């Protein structure tokens, strides 16, 4: 009994959420207006309900435990709001009053529906406490890390560690992680943030050098010549050749080793030589296939001492040999100890091998996740340099290929040429000029600390610092000094405190008695975190300082400036990845490469898989970025004549990239004309289809749920806990196996309790029937395309025949009697929720209306839409 009633209530909640429509509601809420609202209730609404509804939902009968004979309802009460909105939806759809009762005329009905909308919008605004209002928003882990790095002025573009992963993540599978209502702050988060803040401040403000200068330089050509002279026979041993490297100044020599095999015969798995020695050019490293454990082909430099702080700077003269159709090599530096290698720097090398260029890679040692305790015990630091490129496509065995391992030549691979290597450790990295004022003659330490804080605090707090705040942080400095701390250590405490201060941790928008527009500083923060995911830069700060940002033209200009900057990829990435749940595909169990297909180089596969999946995740944000930059219509997200891909994805899709090649090739995403089966924008991307399929061959229903929730924006209630996935049902019930997939799904949606939702969900999933679980075209074993039956229907029963027809239906304007929202509505609701950093409610419908209107008055493009959202009242108001 309890279980049943729970299901019923879930269903009704879900049904209620579905109900939103686009009737414009006036929004001003003065007292006179309140009177009018109440008057309409007593003159229009109450009589209407008395005539049509009270007989069943009144004092005598309460069908469905609902009654409408009360006084003016206050829809702030969630239960009441649910009832009234459900009533509105049922009346709009003609389901209420029930069959057999007199129908209200349209003239009767319209003002009543409008009144309910108005009441709900008012309630929503009251609940929120203002039209733009959101609860105190915390920076997301990623925003927090970016902000900390930016205000300290640290930048390590080649450091491959995502520091935000060190903070506990907000789980927000259905909402955006910037949704303030979903965020929770707990001791663990604060503790980790404090740990990280301390570490970053240590990197930016190192105390006195703990080791002498460390510099080593090697001419790898000489090293190669010596090695080649010594190594006349094929070698298989791990360290094939070792040579000393004298220190550039004082100090013990380091040693450089060549690890790997070359000129060797087939070792059973890898038939050909990989590392090449070239006395004229240096050492050529093939991609290192090992993901975990000791590298097979690499150079290792063993330093005779352990710098665990400071910035490791590597200058490499390097070049690339890139065969046609391959990607550029990736130079990777790792800290190695025993069987663990910790990558600390990666950069793509594109200079030709004939004319190697100097590359500089900087990495903060203190932030490396290495086993420092063990390294100290060993007494030396081992750096490993290898080529970490993944293949564009692993060599696959065709189904009828009978050749054995070793008989098939390795695919051509790129090579990384290293011709000289210089390593040094610098104590102080480049940092923000606001971080620490340089000492003036005759100035006391305290005055210097004050001057520094006066410059730094506004950066961290993203607004001018108050005198009391400077004084408070200076007080911390004083207290530390009194405890005997050095100037730097005391000042670092004050800076660390600023980084975990609530002023930095949250986007603070103080309350006011009345609804108020944001101040220029608050607006600058909202804008900057939206577009770049970090604190405002200097230009934006200047516009906030003189207040010009509050002018609409300046706001437009600044938004345009931020969006034109490549950093706006942060917006595209965060929005698209969360909206489309793309990160989930990183953890799918199934492999895109079948084990039986691979030859010779099984160890290449894990790395290829990982990189390919990252490419899939990146494709949607890249498309979004391109469309946003070009201000293409919103509709092009689901119908587009180009795809934004790199070579690896092109191979995966079977697109011939040679024809559209552009230098440098490989890893970079670029626009390519879309083939016939990839013209659906997001809808034909491998990433979306894979995320929707959850790694299951038979996933029509999961795909339907994905489409209805994420693309059509209709919220579906959670199914009861005891539902089996389709393929499991197949396994369980022999009779089901006799059915075609379509019949099977239809059987499923004909079960009574499931039908309510599944009649709307299931027919959608067939749109993707010709794509497999990773979004490739479905083929049979012989490689021929499998005929797919891709017809289905939208929740409002609009039929479609295939994916192209589906996406056309998605963007056609809805017919009058079909209240199903279309893609553009759903998309703009999602985007607006992200822009505002809160979930939308009934009070926002009117704003969305005017946003659509404003965007349409411009060119109606994606950028116009985003601009209209930024200019809208909720974004600019508290």
């Amino acid at each position, binding site marked *: 009994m309890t279980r049943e009633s729970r299901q019923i209530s879930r269903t009704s909640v879900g049904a209620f959420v579905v109900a939103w429509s686009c009737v414009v509601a006036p929004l001003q809420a003065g007292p006179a207006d309140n009177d009018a609202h109440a008057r309409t209730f007593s003159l229009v609404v109450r009589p209407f309900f008395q005539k049509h509804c009270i007989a069943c939902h009144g004092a005598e009968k309460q069908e469905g435990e609902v009654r409408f004979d009360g006084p003016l309802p206050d829809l702030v009460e969630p239960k009441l709001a649910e009832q009234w909105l459900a009533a509105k939806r049922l009346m709009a759809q003609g389901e209420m009053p029930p069959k057999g009762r007199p129908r209200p005329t349209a003239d009767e009905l319209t003002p009543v529906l409008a009144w309910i909308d108005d009441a709900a919008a008012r309630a929503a605004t009251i609940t929120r406490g203002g039209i733009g209002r959101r609860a105190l928003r915390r920076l997301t882990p990623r925003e927090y890390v970016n902000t900390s790095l930016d205000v300290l002025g640290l930048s390590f573009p080649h450091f491959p560690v995502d520091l935000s992963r060190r903070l506990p993540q907000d789980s927000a599978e259905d909402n955006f992680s910037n949704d303030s209502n979903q965020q929770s702050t707990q001791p663990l988060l*604060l503790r980790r943030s404090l740990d990280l803040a301390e570490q970053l401040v240590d990197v930016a403000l190192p105390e006195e050098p703990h080791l002498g200068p460390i510099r080593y330089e090697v001419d790898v050509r000489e090293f190669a010549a010596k090695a080649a002279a010594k190594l006349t026979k094929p070698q298989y041993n791990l360290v094939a050749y070792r040579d000393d490297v004298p220190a550039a100044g004082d100090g013990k020599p380091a040693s450089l080793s060549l690890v790997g095999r070359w000129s060797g015969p087939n070792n059973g798995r890898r038939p050909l030589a990989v590392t090449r020695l070239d006395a004229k050019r240096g050492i050529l490293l093939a991609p290192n296939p090992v993901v975990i454990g000791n590298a097979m082909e690499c150079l290792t430099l063993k330093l005779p001492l352990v710098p665990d702080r400071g910035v490791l700077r590597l200058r490499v003269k390097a070049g690339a040999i890139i065969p046609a159709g391959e990607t550029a090599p990736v130079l990777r530096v790792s800290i190695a100890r025993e069987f663990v290698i910790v990558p600390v720097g990666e950069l793509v090398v594109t200079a030709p091998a004939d004319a190697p260029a100097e590359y500089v890679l900087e990495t903060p040692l203190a932030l490396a996740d290495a086993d420092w305790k063990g390294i100290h015990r060993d007494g030396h630091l081992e750096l490993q340099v290898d080529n970490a490129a993944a293949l564009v496509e692993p060599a696959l065995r065709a189904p009828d290929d009978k050749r054995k391992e070793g008989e098939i030549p390795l695919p051509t691979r790129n090579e990384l040429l290293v011709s000289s290597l210089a390593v040094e450790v610098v104590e102080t990295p480049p940092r923000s000029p606001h971080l620490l004022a340089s000492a003036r003659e005759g100035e006391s330490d305290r005055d210097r600390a004050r001057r520094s804080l006066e410059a730094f605090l506004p950066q961290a707090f993203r607004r001018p610092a108050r005198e009391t705040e400077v004084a408070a942080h200076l007080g911390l400095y004083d207290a530390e000094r009194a405890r005997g701390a050095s100037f730097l250590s005391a000042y670092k405490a004050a800076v660390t405190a600023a980084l975990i201060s609530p002023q930095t941790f949250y986007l603070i928008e103080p309350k006011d008695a009345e609804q108020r527009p944001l101040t220029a500083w608050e607006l600058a923060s909202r804008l900057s975190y939206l577009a770049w995911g970090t604190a405002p830069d200097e230009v934006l700060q200047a516009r906030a300082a003189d207040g010009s940002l509050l002018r609409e033209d300046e706001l437009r200009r600044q938004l345009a400036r931020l969006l034109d900057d490549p950093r706006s990829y942060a917006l595209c990435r965060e929005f698209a990845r969360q909206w489309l749940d793309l990160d989930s595909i990183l953890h799918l*169990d199934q492999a895109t490469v079948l084990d039986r297909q691979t030859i010779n180089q099984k160890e290449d596969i894990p790395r290829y898989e990982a990189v390919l999946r990252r490419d899939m995740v990146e494709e949607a944000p890249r498309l979004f970025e391109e469309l946003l930059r070009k201000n293409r219509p919103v509709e092009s997200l689901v119908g587009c004549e180009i795809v934004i891909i790199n070579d690896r994805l092109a191979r995966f899709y079977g697109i011939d990239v040679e024809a559209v090649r552009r230098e440098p090739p490989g890893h970079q995403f670029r626009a390519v004309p879309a083939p016939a089966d990839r013209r659906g924008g997001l809808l034909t991307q491998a990433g979306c289809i894979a995320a929707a399929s959850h790694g299951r061959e038979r996933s029509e229903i999961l795909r339907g749920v994905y489409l209805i929730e994420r693309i059509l924006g209709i919220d579906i209630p959670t199914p009861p806990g005891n539902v089996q996935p389709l393929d499991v049902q197949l396994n369980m019930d022999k009779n089901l196996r006799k059915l075609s997939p379509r019949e099977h799904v239809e059987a499923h949606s004909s079960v009574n309790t499931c039908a309510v939702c599944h009649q709307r969900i299931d027919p959608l999933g067939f749109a993707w029937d010709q794509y497999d679980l990773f979004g490739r075209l479905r083929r049979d074993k012989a490689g021929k395309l499998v005929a797919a039956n891709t017809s289905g229907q939208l929740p409002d029963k609009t039929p479609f025949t295939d994916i192209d027809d589906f996406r056309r239906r998605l963007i056609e304007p809805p017919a009058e009697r079909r209240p199903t929202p279309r893609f553009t509505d759903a998309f703009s609701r999602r985007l607006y929720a992200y822009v505002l950093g809160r979930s939308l409610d009934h009070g926002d419908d009117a704003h969305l209306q005017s946003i659509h209107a404003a965007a349409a008055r411009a060119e109606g493009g994606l950028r116009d839409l985003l601009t209209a959202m930024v200019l809208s009242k909720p974004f600019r108001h508290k």
Partner: protein
Amino acid sequence: MSSEFLTRRRFLKASGVCLALPWLERFASAKDAADAPNRAVFLFVPNGVNMWEWHPATTGKDYELTPPLRNLAGLRDRFTAFSGLQHIKAGGGHQEAALWLTGNPNYASKKEIYVTPNTISIDQHIAGAIGRQTRWPSMVVGADGGQYTCSFDAEGRPVLADFDLASIFAELVGADPKGRLPQRGSILDLVANQAAGLRRELGKSDERKLDEYVESIRALEKRVQADMAWKSTFRREAIQDDRLNLRADPHNTPDGVDFVDTMLELIYLALRIDCTRVAAFSAYRSSQCCVLKHLGFDVHTEGHNSGDALPEDKPKHFANLSKADAWWTERLARFLDRLRTTREGEHDMLRHTTVLYGSGMSWPAYHRNHNLPILLAGGEGVGFAHGQHIVFNGQRKDIPNDKQEHRNATKLGPDAVSMSDLLRTISERMGVPAEGFGESRRVLTELLA
């Protein structure tokens, strides 16, 4: 309500008062090491078990160990197996991890993320009372981390689970330079003041958000003070390097094995040095059986594929589920053995450590939660007596039959015993009154010596 019921309640209430004084009891039982603290550990196993094999067929002292329990043969006298434990009102479904330690029938979640607040979980309930005595009030850990946890605070919010082995270890052994702590203290003072000043500027709903921050700061301050006061009595020999792989990644086979073993070892270390007395380990989500990938099948899919069918219909799937069960009990045996072989006063650590092990799910395919697979080990020091298989609610071992009766829960009478009763019993033996916890009606005196 019968008068008999009333008297029993009164009796239990009275006994609860008694139990609130564990010190007395401990001194009464004389020869226990004078300062061995009592601890509770909660080990959550996701995704249910192979129910055809889990529960023993016979009851009492001489029950026959079932295949998954054979790993625990050497510890037979130190644990109790249960049949028939379940939540009374809370049904099956995807929220089983969140219900396991709370027994809250009104909890709702979507995709394992909470949508309504939960109620407090028993580990946090105990930690609320005894957590102040140790550096860490409680240790909440899990592979997926964050909000995927069995632990909920007094407001019903998930207590974020820690997942970072290296950080936990560093904090445990005090790798943070101690000189840094006073500075941390002053930093926290400053930001706490700022937050207090900020409160005045914010509206009501923002205040609630800021309160979370303030509470976190306070928790951190307490921790800093505890860390400062903590004399490094840490005995290095307690650390066994080969048991710790701090870089293990739960999402990467074969590290998943190492991850679980290392985490259990960290729990052991934390208890051993009295850094905390309450630990909850929710290994991972039921839908993400990442840790077990090395077994060669996906436990979650396997659970679904078994269809809760008759054993002869799905032999392969049930065999695989058994493999997973045995893998888990092997981990448990290792952990219990570690506690048992560590001397503490005149006894071993296990005697002072109550370990609850089990799943919030029984039959995995339909996510049922009747007849939960639950074991209770150790804690003889607080009065538990082990070595039996105890059956509640008239539950019988499931015998395959054509009517598929195993899929239905036993009919519960008004005096049914619930999972909450067991949780309450643990809490009260630990000296923390928990009358009315979750769906609890009584203390399970059957378990006591």
